């Protein structure tokens, strides 16, 4: 939360919900690319892509947040973020806009939002006519994720 009390967010959609992530975490937004599947990887890991010579993992945010699977279409986007040195991308239905909202409009998460585990949520932004779910990316892709990946690879 910066001093001026204004936050800049990249907003995107999955199903009919609108989400926001801190713009400082976002490296770039790409159209759908050719994804190479990784055998034995967890379900929500779609595979890896070649991002200008770097290989980065891609997570399907739909699967991760428990939404039903959906075919990719021309509005599907990959949001590339950097979290504590690890670059990864996640797939969203579409990217909407860059928003500036005052901190005062952000409220702590209610215990359950439509089945999404509330630990993934940093807060809820109340806009004039809609709600914006602020994702805590660090928690969405937590260490336990690595663990589960490792476990899978071990077995």
């Amino acid at each position, binding site marked *: 939360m910066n001093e001026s009390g204004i936050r800049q967010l990249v907003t995107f959609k999955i199903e009919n919900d609108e989400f926001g992530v801190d713009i400082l975490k976002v490296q770039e937004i790409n159209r759908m690319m*050719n994804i*190479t*599947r*990784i*055998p*034995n*990887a967890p379900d929500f*890991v779609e*595979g*890896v*892509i*070649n991002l200008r*010579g*770097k*290989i*980065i*993992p891609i997570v399907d945010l739909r699967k991760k947040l428990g939404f039903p699977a959906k075919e990719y279409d021309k509005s599907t986007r990959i949001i590339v973020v950097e979290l504590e*040195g*690890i*670059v*990864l991308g996640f797939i969203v239905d579409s990217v909407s806009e860059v928003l500036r909202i005052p901190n005062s409009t952000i409220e702590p998460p209610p215990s359950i939002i439509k089945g999404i585990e509330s630990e993934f949520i940093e807060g809820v932004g109340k806009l004039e006519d809609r709600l914006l779910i602020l994702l805590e990316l660090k928690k969405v*892709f937590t260490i336990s*994720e*690595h663990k589960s*990946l*490792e476990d899978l*690879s*071990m077995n």
Partner: protein
Amino acid sequence: MNNESLEHEEMKEIINDFIIESLELIENATQDIISMEAEQDDEIINSIFRAVHTIKGTSSFLGFSVLSNLAHKAEDLLGLVRKKELNMSKEITDALLESMDTMKLLIEDIKTDYKEKQDTEQLVHKLEVLANPDRKPLGEMFVEEKIITEKELEKVLEKQKQENKKIGEIVLEEKLITDKQLENLLNKQRTKREDQTIRIDVKKLDEMMNLVGELVLGKNRLNMVKNMAKRDISKSSVVDNLDEVTNYIEVITNELQLSIMKARLVPLSKLFNKVPRLVRDLCNSFNKDVELKITGEETELDRTLIESLHDPLIHIIRNSVDHGIETREERIKKGKPERGTLSIDAYNEGNNVVIDIFDDGKGIDIDGLKKKVIEKGLMSENEINDMTEKEIMNLIFIPGLSTAKKISNVSGRGVGMDVVKTNIEKMNGQVYVDSVKNQWTRISIRLPLTLAIMGALIVEIGHELYAIPLNNVIELVKLNREYIKTVDKNEVLMLRNEIVPILDVARIMSLSDSGKEKYIVICKIGDKTLGIKVNAVVGQEEIVIKSLGEFMGNIKGIGGASIRGDGKVILILDIPAMISDRYMEKINKRREEALEYKYAV
């Protein structure tokens, strides 16, 4: 030394102090030099250097010019070793020890009548040559410059031996050369090849290697575009030109890749230097008598590999001395030579470096090992009976044996060997063992020259393309169902009277088995041969290995990824890990069964 000043008691005292101090310094330095032979240690070099430096300073102050000159030359040589511009070789050690002895004699001279009587000229010359390894002998230069013929040189050298004079003096005396010519040559000799090497930050080399990697990818891509152009555009001079320039770039890229790779190579001596000392210490602590033979220390390997090889190598050597080689008494009883032999041989084989660690100790007791493996429930008797002797020996590398201390008494091996294997496989290497009971054991490590770029076979399995490292592949055969049999639920291929098990990669990787396989890639991992069914073979390509990144962690069976010419990511199959996985599966199953059985009883 001025005799008058020696009248003074004070001076005498100073000189006496100098004599005592110097003798002590020389004594310590001598021991240090000997220990340096076993292990290059910066601290030890520094202490030798300081000792010689002190002697040089004091002797020059007291006016003992011969001693100070000798110390000066020895210091020069040591300085180069200290700066790592020279490696401690046997010649250097010998020369330094000789210098120490001569210094000691000089001091004895000084002690008797304050006169330096030792002749140090040849030794000083030797030190100079060693400190300047690229410096050519003057005689050779004379011949090269066509001043004298080789025959004349022989005569001169003969004369040099008899008269103990400098070669330059003799040539001058014989009027074979003018003063001026000699002076020019001496200057030339001094400056020759001074700037032939530069030191470079490893980071910079890594950077270059990365860039070359990218260049290789670019080249692959260009190749693909060229092939597309050839296919789509009817013959035109543009396509011909493209073809030509692509080939040209391909050649240049390969050369560049090779030369940068070579720049990263470091001789194995860097690692082997530590071995004599290690073996000596081990012999002392386990009361063994072992003769160490090392060959091929000049074999070169990528820098990073040398570093990672350190621990596994030390582990294997420890095992050999501790568990392999018998005590003197045991050896005599067995009718073996009293002294055990441990030999380490390194050599190149194709694009690989092989390191064999051989000992003539008690070898692997196959029956004992079998018993232990069954006892521990790691495998069933039936399974073991199906294995060849070599396969059984290589069980020393499976985990589960290692934690048991007892096994080392039975088999003579097995302590932490699974760790050795894991480490070596991390380097894309292989390790296997061969042995004859009561006679010898040989552990072979096989490593690729470099990690970053490798040749690979691109194949299609399921619906995706995968890369199989070429150093795993021995041949490619067409799949003919007639030659495939099923043994105990596992498929095997009959290949020229040999039975080759087929690794079901599609199942291991949870890929839909399409049953469309047309070829079998025959791989050799260690001493195991196995086949992999593939749908299609795309071809052979140079691939740049990239990691899947921290987020994905280690996925067994995948050794990394690479980017192909069309920009698509391709996964590299890690066959050794897959078979160890297959083994692990079996082993884990057995272990569980054994446990259940135990509880049931």
